[in-house]
């Protein structure tokens, strides 16, 4: 019997076999900063992409990029995107996708426009829009979840269907809401404070709240578990279908707020309202570092992704390139971000 007694390896495999039953837990990264970086690598990666991109633009045209107005103009509509990007991070984490939000934006803001046009207070309009968004989110979510359909295609279908409804009823007519500017609701949600568009404060509050919801609330915890391993979640007594429906409802609410904000910026509701957000919002989520396979994601990363995407067009044009370059740079940023996140993120699934 040949017994090979070679020296022990300098590696911590011992732990894998539970030898050290009496030893305490120990964080692999003892320094808090290292831990912070490890926990937020996706969001920090997105921030890196954004900083590099802005540095390039600034180098190309320093004057424009040191003008506050440029930023304030982006900050006016950025909130519209943020209110959908953030809930979409939840949806994607949950292992689903929602392509019906543009129609929901259009639908909910239509209700808002109808209420305001009928002479009611805009606050009532906002409430009505949010109720509409909630119901539509519930409808879409139920169809996907209880119908057991692929969310990619089913929500695409719902986007067509809802937009079709809007078109059939409105026959292309838009609604101008010129009186809106004098309302309290406008002052609170859409004016400026010291030159800063007030909607960005609301959007930041929303992002912070959602980030907490994602990382520090039962809802976020369940969304992640459901996206990671739905069978497991089900076995542990989580009502998987309900959690799934809830994320769609969350998108519905976000889309309703986004649509309303958009109408308040433009004083006009168009039957196409929301359509233009489909691709930039989707791109933001993934540029932000939430992967497609579900279970993990980053709300803050998604928000930074939205900022990045918002600045691409502005930056390309300000850097003196013709508008023909915008699509190219959109594609480039998406591909580079994906490559960056790929390299930055360990994958356990």
């Amino acid at each position, binding site marked *: 019997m040949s017994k090979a007694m070679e020296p022990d390896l300098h590696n911590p495999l011992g732990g894998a076999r539970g030898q050290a039953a009496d030893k305490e837990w120990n964080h692999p990264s003892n320094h808090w900063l290292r831990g912070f970086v490890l926990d937020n690598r996706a969001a920090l990666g997105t921030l890196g992409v954004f900083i590099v991109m802005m540095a390039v633009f600034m180098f190309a045209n320093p004057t424009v990029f040191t003008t506050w107005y440029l930023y304030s103009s982006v900050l006016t509509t950025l909130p519209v995107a943020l209110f959908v990007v953030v809930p979409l991070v939840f949806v994607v984490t949950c292992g689903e996708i929602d392509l019906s939000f543009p129609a929901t934006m259009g639908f909910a803001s239509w209700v808002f426009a109808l209420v305001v046009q009928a002479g009611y207070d805009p606050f009532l309009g906002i409430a009505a829009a949010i109720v509409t968004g909630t119901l539509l989110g519930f409808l879409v979510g139920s169809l996907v979840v209880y119908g057991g359909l692929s969310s990619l295609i089913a929500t695409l279908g719902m986007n067509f269907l809802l937009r079709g409804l809007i078109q059939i009823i409105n026959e292309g007519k838009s609604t*101008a809401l010129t009186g809106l500017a004098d309302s309290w609701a406008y002052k609170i949600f859409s004016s400026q404070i010291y030159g800063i568009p007030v909607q960005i404060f609301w959007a930041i509050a929303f992002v912070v709240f959602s980030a907490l919801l994602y990382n520090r609330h039962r809802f976020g915890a369940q969304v992640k578990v459901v996206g990671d391993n739905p069978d497991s979640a089900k076995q542990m007594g989580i009502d998987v279908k309900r959690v799934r429906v809830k994320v769609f409802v969350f998108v519905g609410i976000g889309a309703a707020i986004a649509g309303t904000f958009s109408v308040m910026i433009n004083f006009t509701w168009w039957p196409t309202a929301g359509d233009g957000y489909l691709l930039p919002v989707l791109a933001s989520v993934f540029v932000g570092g939430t992967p497609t396979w579900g279970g993990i994601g980053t709300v803050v990363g998604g928000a930074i992704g939205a900022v990045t995407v918002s600045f691409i067009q502005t930056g390309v044009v300000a850097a003196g390139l013709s508008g023909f370059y915008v699509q190219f740079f959109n594609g480039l940023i998406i591909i580079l971000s994906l490559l960056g996140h790929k390299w930055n993120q360990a994958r356990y699934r």
Partner: protein
Amino acid sequence: LDAQWCKDVHIRFFVGGAEGDAFGTIVYNGAKQAAADLGPKVDYIFSGWDVEKMVQQLREAVAVKPQGIAMMGHPGDAAIMALAEQAHKDGIKMMYQNVPVPKVVAAFGGGYVGAQQEQQGRALGAEAFKLAGLKAGDKAIMIGPFENENRGARERGTVAALKEAGVEVIQLSSPPSGEWASDPNLAIPVITAALLNHPDVKAVGYPGGQMLGNVPTYMQAAGRKPGDIFNFGFDTSPQIVEGFKGGWVQLTADQQPFLQGYLPILSLCQQAVLGLAPMNVDTGAGFVTPQNYEIVAELAKQALR
């Protein structure tokens, strides 16, 4: 004046449509010609006709504080008003194209270059009624982006003019995602279906250059011969010229998109450098018919007209 007398002026120019759409390309070429002649630095902006996007692009344009902005009027008075006010405060000269925004112009100034959409559409309707020899009770098809109030104003005008003359008009909406503009072949079965559904249709109107250029294909697919149906529409292009040659197309209202590119830049230069008043030009000048199409043929090939 120097050849490049406008060279220190910075202008943002809204081309309007998507990159590569037939109408936008001619506008773009007009603007480029003006930039080459006069020397200003011009940023070109494409929006794919998405009105929400246009407003945001205008917001960013105002923020950059160029001397002049040539904006599309599509978002409408209400949406543009606040930004026009800001531009006015910052001393930015404004020009509007393609869709007029009378309230904004009344409040904060600015010029307009483009056909008076509704008017041009009506004129086309009247001209088609005349040239096609239509009578009250005849049937015609009108295709258009009716789902978009502003973009569809012109085609609505045509419909209105024909209806007022007693023609029964069947309206076909082109899909809002612009699929027919990016690939007019996709409309082949739909137009065939409409013609089959209304075999007694005498005339068909098309919303823009790409579709009007594809008339021979549509007619062949529906089993019609040149001259069976009076085909009319807007814009010119090499394909439309071919259509005239083959006898497929009978009438187009040339809204001279080249001028819609050239003139706003010229006017903004004049305002910025020479302090002239903004221009107001109706480019919806003429009709092209089988009798005069050869004049535009060469220009169309170069995407100048």
